[in-house]
């Protein structure tokens, strides 16, 4: 199943946020969206996932989702969006409750998702008892439970400290390794984009337009090797040079606002 952004334009009142953004995320592909602060990255993701109606243009799907997918487009949120009154297990089961699945089927899906994210020993724990990294693991576990075709990830690591970020980034790389699941990964962190994405969509300052789409010229597996480090760094510098001046302007604008 492909996800297509088709001429998406969005305004919040008088404020133009996105201007004619079009790109396609093919099945199993990981596309990162980067750009200066306030360029509409998160707005674009909300539109792609059907949580926000664009002013014009539309998000579209092409092809059938995998037969076992319960929620083809599944979000992983920056602030985790966990139910604080529910245990880890209940949080992961939450999106399955309204489905036609039997209790045993639900249990099996929850079990599998908890195991894949290393949460099996924390099933009875409440979110407030967990560290930020573990909370985001619950968010990822909940997303995996519904067997998504495409993960919509809205700066999923930005609320975490750098060590936790590194650990979870490795988890993402592992989860996306087999190409069974695609992702749209919104981030302001160019390293995350370079290490995870097949392609990087670079947006301009508000109103966000596509400045460039950069293809990362190596497999994700190869990026872990020492030899790849220099190439990835060069790629990050290339993207940074595209957005640096606009990032400075955007920062000043925010400070004056």
């Amino acid at each position, binding site marked *: 199943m492909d996800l297509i952004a088709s001429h998406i334009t969005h305004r919040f009142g008088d404020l133009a946020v996105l201007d004619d953004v079009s790109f396609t995320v093919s099945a199993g592909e990981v596309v990162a969206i980067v750009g200066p602060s306030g360029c509409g990255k998160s707005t674009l993701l909300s539109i792609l996932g059907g*949580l926000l109606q664009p002013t014009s243009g539309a998000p579209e799907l092409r092809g059938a989702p995998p037969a076992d997918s319960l929620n083809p487009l599944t979000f992983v949120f920056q*602030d985790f*969006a966990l*139910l604080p009154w529910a245990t880890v297990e209940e949080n992961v089961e939450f*999106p399955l*409750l*309204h489905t036609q699945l039997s209790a045993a089927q639900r249990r099996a899906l929850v079990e599998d998702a908890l195991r894949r994210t290393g949460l099996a020993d924390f099933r009875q724990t409440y979110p*407030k008892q967990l560290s930020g990294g573990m909370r985001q693991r619950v968010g990822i576990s909940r997303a995996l439970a519904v067997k998504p075709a495409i993960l919509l990830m809205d700066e999923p690591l930005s609320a975490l400290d750098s060590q936790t970020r590194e650990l979870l980034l490795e988890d993402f790389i592992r989860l996306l390794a087999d190409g069974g699941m695609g992702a749209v990964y919104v981030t302001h962190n160019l390293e995350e984009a370079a290490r995870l994405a097949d392609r990087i969509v670079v947006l301009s300052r508000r109103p966000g337009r596509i400045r460039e789409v950069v293809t990362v010229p190596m497999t994700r597996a190869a990026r872990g090797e020492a030899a790849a480090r220099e190439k990835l760094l060069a790629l990050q510098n290339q993207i940074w040079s595209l957005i640096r001046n606009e990032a400075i302007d955007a920062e000043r604008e925010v400070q004056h606002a």
Partner: protein
Amino acid sequence: MLDRAATDTAKNEATRPVRFRGAGFEPASSRYGGWIALALVIAIWQAAGSAGLVNALFLPTPSAIVRAIYQLAVSGALWQHVSASLLRIGVGWLLGTAAGIAVGFAIGLSRLARSVGITFISALFPIPKIALLPLLILWLGIGEEPKIATIALGVFFSTAISVYSGVDAVPRNLIRMAQSFNVPFATIVRKVIWPGALPAILAGFRITASVALLLVVSAEMIGAQYGIGAFVLQAGNLMQTDQLLAGVVILSVFGLAVGKVIGWLEMRLLHWR
């Protein structure tokens, strides 16, 4: 290098501790402090009364009040008055709470209900509900109904306000999360909005319990044969201040008991906080 040089110069001077400035602003209540203070006040009160320093007609001693409560209990009058008040509070509070929760949720979830409901609530909430009792007597007769309706009205407005404030306070990101998983509206209300609003709803219960107590006493003072309010008024008219204060103590115990029940509910239902 510069640092080392500075340290060396200062080495021969006497040291002094950095003054601790972080004390206070952390009030922690001690477990028995309040009870000890209460016992102390009662003891002083009793001693002053026994020594004849206070006229028993104006302020009877605690022992006289306890005696009055005991006599009321033995004669069966206590239960008669307490049960009459409890029935009015119970029915009035339940009706007001049920209606308040329903209207509060409607205002929290529907645009139409919000625009209509908030206008009405803003206009009617400030009216002291006891002022409506004569009108309610005219409408509903002189039985239990107008008293119950007064309590229900008082409870309704506070409940509706705390419920819709609670619904408004449910983090929108949790609702968006549920929507992103195609969770149906009713399940979002039941599994996200209800538990999210529960802290505000339970906090509202504390307020409505005291509103109900206030209104039952007021209503019973205006027109009732039985009930704690009627009893207190009657005792006052007859200058039976020990009986009067017995009624006040019973009200205080009732208020404390309700507080404890709500505290227990909060502990059970909001343990995740």
